């Protein structure tokens, strides 16, 4: 019975390229693999030991050879041995694995942040420079990249096997993961959390480039508007500046340099202003009132898309002074033909500015 040559060639090709681990293309990958190898070795030793014991006893003490069994109660010493040795090994794995875990999920402060929005069934990446991608992610080598993930519908999971990292994209909450790619190439991007009909089509490419290629890609893919610029546009069109303008009589707190600062809420609890806080404060302001301000901000739940929120957050993150906010306000105020019964936002702005 001969094997079909097609199958034969297929098998040969597979055996030649046979791998049990994906390529190691990130700084963390070899470290994860080292632990995987350690655990595999321990498992093989353990399995061999159990196998040898069972086989040896089965041969030595089979009925023909040993017709009369010797009753043994047990042995505290032996039992302690096989309690303590596995426990010790498991604890080593626990410590080693926890160190890696903290490394994978604690981004360094200098990491470049890229936002990723998951939805049924695609991945949308938003680069700070305004480059948008769907089902692919271009990144440079040798630069720590932080991903800030969110889902706009169900749970998804952003998995890059070649980097040994994975993070869930959760509705209504930012999660982060970081990595530093080491080898240029194209790698798999999978959605690993089951998310409905086209779950298995929610895949893409991670394109790792040399810094030069990456620059070229950035230049060639820009939309012309960075995330922060887009955020400023939204900020202005939603009239956020009517209250958040930094003037002494402003009805909302100043947002300049607010990112990274510590605030006290009216509830008395202190909060650290990060991306997640900013997002929540826009969507659900009444639960996030800064001390000294009235709860007058309306909710923007359902009015701004996740991408819009990302732009706003990115804008506020980079806001160092209220100069441009006030400029925008003044420009609106100076417009002579602004009708009194114009849009509600216009009226509000005039009300603030005029005595």
């Amino acid at each position, binding site marked *: 019975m001969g094997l079909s040559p097609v199958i034969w060639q*297929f098998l040969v090709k597979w055996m030649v390229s046979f791998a*049990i681990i*994906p390529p190691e293309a990130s700084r963390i990958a070899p470290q*994860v693999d080292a*632990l*995987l190898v350690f*655990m595999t070795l321990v*498992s093989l030793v*353990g*399995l061999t030991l*159990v196998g040898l*014991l069972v086989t040896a*006893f*089965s041969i030595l*003490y*089979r*009925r023909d050879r*040993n017709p009369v*069994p*010797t*009753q*043994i*109660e*047990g*042995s505290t010493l*032996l*039992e302690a041995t096989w*309690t303590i040795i596995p*426990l010790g090994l*498991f604890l080593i*794995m*626990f410590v080693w*694995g*926890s160190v890696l*875990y903290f*490394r*994978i999920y604690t981004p360094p402060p200098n990491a470049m942040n890229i936002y990723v929005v998951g939805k049924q069934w695609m991945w949308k990446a938003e680069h700070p420079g305004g480059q948008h991608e769907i089902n692919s992610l271009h990144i440079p080598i040798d630069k720590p990249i932080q991903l800030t993930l969110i889902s706009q519908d*169900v*749970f998804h*999971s952003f*998995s890059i*096997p*070649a980097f040994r*990292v*994975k993070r869930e994209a*959760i*509705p209504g*909450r930012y*999660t982060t993961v970081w990595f530093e790619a080491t080898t240029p190439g194209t790698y*798999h991007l*999978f959605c*690993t*959390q*089951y*998310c*409905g*009909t086209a779950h*298995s089509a929610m895949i893409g490419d991670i394109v790792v480039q040399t810094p030069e290629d990456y620059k070229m890609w950035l230049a060639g893919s820009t939309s012309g508007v960075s995330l922060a610029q887009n955020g400023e546009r939204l900020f202005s069109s939603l009239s956020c500046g009517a209250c958040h303008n930094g003037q002494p009589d402003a009805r909302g707190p100043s947002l300049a340099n607010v990112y990274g600062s510590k605030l006290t809420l009216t509830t008395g609890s202190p909060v650290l202003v990060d991306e997640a806080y900013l997002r929540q404060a826009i969507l659900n302001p009444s639960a996030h009132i800064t001390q000294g301000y009235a709860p007058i901000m309306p909710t923007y*739940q*359902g009015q701004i898309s996740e991408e819009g929120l990302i732009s706003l957050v990115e804008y506020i993150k980079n806001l160092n002074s209220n100069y441009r906010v006030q400029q925008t306000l003044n420009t609106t105020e100076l417009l002579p033909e602004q009708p009194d019964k114009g849009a509600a936002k216009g009226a509000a702005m005039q009300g603030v500015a005029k005595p």
Partner: protein
Amino acid sequence: MSTILNLPDQATARVPKRNYLTNENGIMSWLLTGDHKRIAILYLISITFFFFIGGALAGLIRLELLTPQSDLMASDTYNKIFTMHGVVMIFLFLVPSVPATLGNFLIPIMIGAKDLAFPKINLLSWYLYLAGGALTLGAMISGGVDTGWTFTTPMSTHFSNTNVITTGLAIFIAGFSSIFTGLNFIVTLHRMRAPGMTWFKMPLFCWAHYAASILMVLGTPVLAITIVLVALERTVGIGVFDPTKGGDPILFQHLFWFYSHPAVYIMILPGMGVISEVISTFSRKRVFGYTAVAFSSVAIAVFGFFVWAHHMFIMGVSNYAVLVFSLLTMLVAVPSAIKIFNWAFTLYKGSITFETPMLYAFGFMGLFTIGGLTGVFLGTAGTDIHLTETYFIVAHFHFVMVGGMLMAFLSGIHFWWPKLTGRMYPEKISQLAAVVTFIGFNFTFFPQFLLGMLGMPRRYAAYPQEFQVLNVFSTAGATILGVGYLLPMIYLVWSLKYGQIAGNNPWQATGLEWQIQSPPLTENFTTIPIVTQDVYDYEWLERQKEHEVTHVG
């Protein structure tokens, strides 16, 4: 020991005319029975039915995965099939498998009782199981459900248009059957042990079921609550799991895994109980370190409640919570390691024979060891990130559930078949079936570890070309495995009529169940036995036989 009924040995034995099977006739005598043995048989028939439904679905999954494209069925169909495979196998087969059949049949006999504490609740639990099963089938036929057996929100609450509530209701109802079984076992083991049957004279099978029962009684209600919350969220939108209403979608997973992790131990602990009995009997030795094995069951049950978040390491839970849950996961791995080594050393200086139950038990030890050790890969936080949600985890839990639990179930079914039916199964062909199952199993699931290492995500109807070879291996293995499961189905039915007559104690085992006639009387014991011998007391058994020879012969 004159209180224990002794019948002549196997060579001259006949199936006793009066036993629990012949005591009453007619379909109503079965449907309205309070006899724990008859209920066990009813359960055995029903779970076998659902096992083959779940198995057929598994076959379809493997057939689809033969090629990288989604070509046998649309991806929606594939999603519904793997969901149904999970629901049927977990809630309708694995959870009730050993406890509701062998546990139901044997626990009262092993402790010298005439029945379980609440015979009518026992029957009710079977009807609830049937109702749950029928609803599940109904949900499947009327369009299926596509959320995965994990019912993750907001997928299950806001995005799925399939029969989520019907399936949820089915699981809710089947859950109560499990609670009732657990409750029955706990009360029976506390209150109905025969005189002299102290806790530490109980077979380890009873200890394992006691631990599993605690999990059933305390864990299953949480699942019931979770299902109710999902149903309320779907119907009236209460918002507990909805972030736009201030709810938390991760809360669902905390609640779900608070049941579903202990559920793993509900499934595996009774299997471990079977293995303890089988290994002791076929090496003719008491279990090495009886107390350690007994307490390791309880330890697994207790620790099992505090490891649920290890299913959620990548979900954005606090890094420090991950530390705690990872550490506790390592601790729960230890009692399982203890059990494996204690079983291995039970063989030491034994007098070992290799009948079918023993072969399955060896298979269990090997596959469960692999399943347990790969669990450590997943409990270790750093490597879990790479391996979770891939085929590695699929392979891991199939090694534990199928390689472990199903092997234990088959081992137990063969071991107690003579007691259940009064007849022997055919030895040679069943040894063959055990070997075929073991080979087929490894062929099916070992390649999946490699696929997971390479990063192939689970629940994919289509996958990149490079994963095909390993998937072909897996599908090929599944066909062998299928043969391994069909064989017992055929020869066990055959043996009901043509099997050799078993006699009371074909294995010369020490349990009380082997000292009474096969199949037992409806009342199990003519008079309640007084237990003087120790557990696994083979010397006592020898003395008994000599006594019989001098007095009867």
